[in-house]
């Protein structure tokens, strides 16, 4: 009942976005730590290819380190990039929550009118 492609894709997105928020928090807390490389997660490309090839959209993302140029102390965290990414991730997370909620809402209204 709940195993359709949409629900699984949304859940994968929620997991990926939640991890991304954590990675951003880690990056910002290490804004000035010498030698620190910013973390990144990419789940979108895995999700995209799973959806277009018809395989299961239950994907986990790949966590990697950013290859951006570092400053003098070896740190490559860019506060502007992280801030924008933080805001965007928060909004996308809320949107995915909303979409998941709506999926359940559809089921419930179908049940109520039965």
């Amino acid at each position, binding site marked *: 009942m*709940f*195993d*359709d*492609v949409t629900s699984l894709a949304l859940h994968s997105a929620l997991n990926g976005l*939640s991890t991304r928020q954590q990675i951003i928090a880690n990056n910002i807390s290490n804004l000035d730590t010498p030698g620190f490389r910013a973390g990144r997660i990419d789940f979108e490309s895995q999700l995209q290819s799973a959806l277009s090839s018809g395989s299961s959209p239950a994907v986990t993302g790949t966590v990697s380190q950013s290859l951006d140029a570092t400053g003098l102390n070896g740190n490559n965290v860019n506060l502007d990039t992280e801030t924008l990414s933080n805001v965007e991730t928060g909004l996308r997370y809320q949107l995915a929550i909303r979409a998941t909620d709506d999926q359940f809402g559809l089921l419930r209204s179908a049940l109520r009118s*039965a």
Partner: protein
Amino acid sequence: MSIGPIAMPIMPTVPAASTLSSTGTAGASAAGSTEGFSNALSGGLDNLQQLQSTADTLAVQAATGNLTNVHDYMIAATKASVATDLTVAVRNKAVEAFNEILRMQV
């Protein structure tokens, strides 16, 4: 006189549970999504026990602070709630139909 079995009014056919994946693996569900709403509903009935127990497990994790993702619990709880609504709706319809039949003059 013999009384035949009651046909469920909202589901004309109830496929066997084994035709549906009840563990929620997406491989079956990608095909399952083409099998129609009636299959989805009956799958929901079979799953109720498992959905409730998943929601309970995650609730305990939430209580002890070991839950990795908040949305996991919220989704599991909502699934269990919708599945319960479904079971109740089916039961109510069945009871209604039964009473309907009792009232019939023979």
